[in-house]
């Protein structure tokens, strides 16, 4: 699996003030797989995820050291173009945050920014991505309605479609189903499984069952350190580390 890493993290440290919240993280993330990051709350898993597309840049008092290579290119290189890096990755946050515009404009937002102007092209992108997220039939008659009128589950799928519209290579999910009802959750989970044919997917989750259902590999993070990394079944059924064992059994939460 390390032969063809899509994302390669090397000696990554994150400091908040004088506190080190991620400690010497090194890991290779394989191409076109679903990887779950699990761990107790406050262990740094969301911070780790945000390092992938440099969303920590604007957080005051946060310093990042080390390398994150995406397709062999270090994104923390001072010369790296941040918008270009972010375009490669779609982010799905904890709660859906539809942009304050119509359903259509939400999906078209990214492509427009990146230079797609023609109505025909945009129409096609919007339709493709809404179909990919199974939203097309539900919204095709009201594409110009404000996105906030959709249900929470629909909004989350819209946000996914919005992310896919910029043709990313990687999808980052930050507990993306935690605000959703069970039905929407399973729709999103199924989408992840379907999408891994084309994308590398990294999910942060604190639900072990979810990690088991959707992911190929699991990373267990505890107190800002990677404790264990391995294929899902192996890590969950036969953990090598004592801490992982305790977490999987539910002793640490």
């Amino acid at each position, binding site marked *: 699996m390390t032969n063809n890493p899509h994302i390669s993290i090397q000696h990554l440290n994150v400091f908040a003030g004088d506190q080190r919240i991620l400690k010497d993280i090194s890991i290779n993330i394989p191409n076109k797989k679903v990887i779950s990051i699990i761990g107790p709350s406050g262990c740094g898993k969301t911070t780790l995820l945000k390092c992938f597309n440099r969303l920590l840049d604007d957080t005051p008092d946060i310093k990042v050291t080390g390398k994150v290579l995406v397709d062999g290119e270090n994104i923390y290189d001072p010369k790296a*173009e941040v*918008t*270009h890096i972010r375009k490669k990755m779609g982010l799905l946050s904890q709660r859906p945050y539809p942009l304050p515009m119509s359903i259509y404009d939400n999906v078209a937002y990214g492509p427009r*920014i990146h230079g797609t102007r023609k109505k025909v092209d945009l129409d096609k992108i919007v339709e493709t991505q809404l179909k990919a997220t199974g939203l097309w039939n539900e919204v095709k008659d009201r594409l110009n309605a404000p996105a906030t009128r959709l249900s929470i589950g629909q909004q989350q799928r819209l946000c996914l479609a919005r992310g896919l519209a910029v043709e990313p290579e990687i999808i980052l999910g930050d507990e993306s189903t935690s605000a959703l009802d069970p039905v929407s959750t399973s729709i999103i989970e199924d989408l992840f499984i379907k999408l891994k044919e084309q994308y590398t997917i990294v999910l942060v989750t604190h639900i072990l069952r979810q990690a088991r259902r959707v992911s190929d590999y699991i990373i267990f993070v505890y107190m800002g350190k990677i404790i264990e990394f391995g294929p899902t079944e192996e890590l969950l059924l036969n953990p090598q580390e004592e801490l992982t064992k305790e977490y999987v059994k539910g002793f640490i939460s």
Partner: protein
Amino acid sequence: MIRRKLEENFFRILMALATILVAGSFFLIVGTIFYKGIPSMSWDMISKVPGGGFYIGKEGGVLNAIIGSLYVAGGATGLGLLISIPVAIYMNMYLGGKNIIANGLRIAFDVLFGIPSIVYGAFGFFIMVYFGIRASLLGGILAVTLLVIPILVRTLDEVIQTVPKELRDASLSLGATRWEMAKVVLRQIRPGIFTAILLSFGRAIGDVASVLFTAGFSDNIPTSLHQPAATLPLAIFFQLGSPVAEVQGRAYASALILTIIVLIITILSSVLSKRLSKNIK
């Protein structure tokens, strides 16, 4: 890509420039006042009342206006406090703080805050004519009180809201009546009351339009409420209108005095409110 990057940088620079202009306008104003005011500044300015021929450039100072302004601002703030403390307490303790009536009252006071001082002045003048009061210290204080009530109420209201609900509940659950609880809360927010006083005083001392009709003007320091009183802003305004260069210079010096007073008050209040917010955390 390059175009977007250029656009980003262009607007970033534009924003920085705008910020420099907006924040810098403070320095521009204070700088201008200091630059023009200091040459005409003298000990006489703040220690003497206008002598004979003061308005054609002979000796004297603006002590009458300084004292008058302090009287008006102090009187109005005091009177305003007497009215607004009960109002703020009523809104938060008796009306429960967060319901339609209390929020409606908040909007009403915000609206009152927006009414320009010239309207308060005109209204105050109308009242004075109605009751047969002549332009005097009393009239000025009354008009300015109207002006500062909304400031006092809203500031006190916000301060009271920062008192933890647990404290109020604790006092209530010991069997205190709401009035007794209010006394506890008042003790708690004492620094907040000072902030409110300073804010109100700062606004009151600088306002012209409300005292223009109501306080009158006099070269003497008022010794009773029924005498007309000079105020500093009005003194600046009158002196600036003079064709005599020396009198104009004194206007600048008076402006300098007023600016310094107001700056001290503003800085003091912001230091106080910072300390207050630290206390609450």
